[in-house]
């Protein structure tokens, strides 16, 4: 599977981080190689969003899925990050809570918008994962356990070949 970067942005860094952790958990369950970059990890060493994007780009081009939730409040910075990384997905987590002095600029065209005012975190997470599936970044997780008529014909033939029916 090829790498990509999911950047969770929004006015509340703690909400962004929580949502990023939830998405990370699901992707790990699916067996995806994930690195999460948040204020507590890379934020201790790299202050600017461009610095985080530099690391995310290295991971992405080495086929690691990178989930960033470090602050990226400025639209121009995010556009630069998108351009640098290429395989980049922006999830905008709308929230009523704004933190610190950061003046957050709303994004123009995020791939997915999560309304944390109206939705639960789990609903937002599902929406992000579905978006990643639709965009082809991750394989679909739909578990289809029903046999079609064609499936049944093939199984019937296989069982007949071996004398089982």
């Amino acid at each position, binding site marked *: 599977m090829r790498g990509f970067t999911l950047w969770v942005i929004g006015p509340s860094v703690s909400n962004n981080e929580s949502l990023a952790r939830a998405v990370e958990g699901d992707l790990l369950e699916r067996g995806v190689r994930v690195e999460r970059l948040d204020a507590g990890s890379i934020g201790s060493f790299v202050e600017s969003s461009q610095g985080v994007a530099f690391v995310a780009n290295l991971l992405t081009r080495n086929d690691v899925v990178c989930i960033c939730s470090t602050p990226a409040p400025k639209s121009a910075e995010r556009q630069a990050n998108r351009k640098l990384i290429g395989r980049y997905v922006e999830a905008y987590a709308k929230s009523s809570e704004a933190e610190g002095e950061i003046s957050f600029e709303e994004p123009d065209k995020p791939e997915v918008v999560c309304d944390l005012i109206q939705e639960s975190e789990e609903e937002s997470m599902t929406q992000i994962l579905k978006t990643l599936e639709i965009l082809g970044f991750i394989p679909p997780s739909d578990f*289809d356990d029903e046999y079609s008529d064609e499936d049944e014909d093939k199984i019937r033939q*296989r069982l007949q070949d071996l004398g089982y029916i």
Partner: protein
Amino acid sequence: MALFRKKKKRAMILGLDGVPIGLIERLMDAGVMPAFRDLSQKGTLQSMKASLPEISAVSWTDFMTGTQSGEHGIFGFTDFRDGSYELKFPNFSDVKSRTLWDKLGDQGKRSIVVNQPSTYPARPIPGCLISGFVAINIKKSVHPLTLLRRVVEEGYSIDIPTMQCRNDHDLLMRELDETLKGRQRVVDWLWEDQDWDLFELVITGTDRLQHFVWNSVEDPSHPLHQEAMDYYANIDRLIGQLIERFVEGPGGDLSRIFLLSDHGFCAIEQEVRLNAWLEQEGYLRFLTDEPKELTDVDPQSKAFFLDPARLYINRKGRFEKGTVEEEEAEAVLEELTEGLTSLDHNGNRVVRFTLKGMEVYAGPHADRAPDLILTSHRGYDLKGTVKEKSVFGKTDLEGMHSWDDAFFWSLRPKIEDLKISDLSDIIMAELV
């Protein structure tokens, strides 16, 4: 603190579909399986009873759930749709008991499972799963799906092309060889790439070879004998490599290696078409001269068989068009039990024993059990076809399943009356 960290335990399971203990012993004696010979000198190679009936769909499900059909709900490759004579093909989502891998997941342990029969379509397990027989679509055989691309790139085949190989035995030998190599490539990759506590590989080519050309295995003068021996030697080489890698790797220990087969095997002397016998004895009629399925059954029939040897009384309450009243059913069952037990072929008894479904199975799904299950004497391959009119006959298939000569190897002392459903607990006890 690493000094005080508890050493991680790992386990490995290797399954050889349909390989009887007698064949393992012969191949060890002939020098074809030296790795197995080494194992048999270090541990216990013993016989084991398969499920009833002795088919992979049920036996592997007994193995992976540690239960029997009354609990896990799988009674065969086929079953009736509720109340109907129409067949359905149960799949992994019909398995109603938790698997060994699910239970290990509760303990935080991850399993890598490659080519496990009766797990199609692959559903999430704590770890990775590549479904085996009767998997038909690789895209629905791999969990997690992120593994799919590499599995395909490694040239992994779910199975050999059975239809072509049944008639072309040179192709069969080539396909067996290629399929085994593909499995090994995927095993080598997953072994190193994934974090795991239990690694399981099942080789199903053995069952295919034995069904199609059992004589090549048994008869040294058979033109394909050497190729058959080479195939078992390749399997033995793979077993030897995996054991060495496992024991020398982190958390590996010979005491946590387990080898098994899901049933035994023997040569077919005669196929016995049980529905033809029922028809001949007046218990079964069809609405057409050339029935294709049990949906063609005349509702006035008293009983019918599903493959391989599952007898159902046409009970009024069980089948929508059933006509046998409950008070009559027991008498019909007794008559049939007597008649089937005394069925003979050239002076030889065909049926070794019969068991009532309720005697064999217990649990929430036991009410779906057949009324009677038959096990045959060696060589008599019991069939539930509705297309044949003669009770005895033969096809081009050479080998059939047998019940009580599957094998199990471990370092443990011999276990009396071992059944395949016992293994799940044995393995859990060594790993948790």
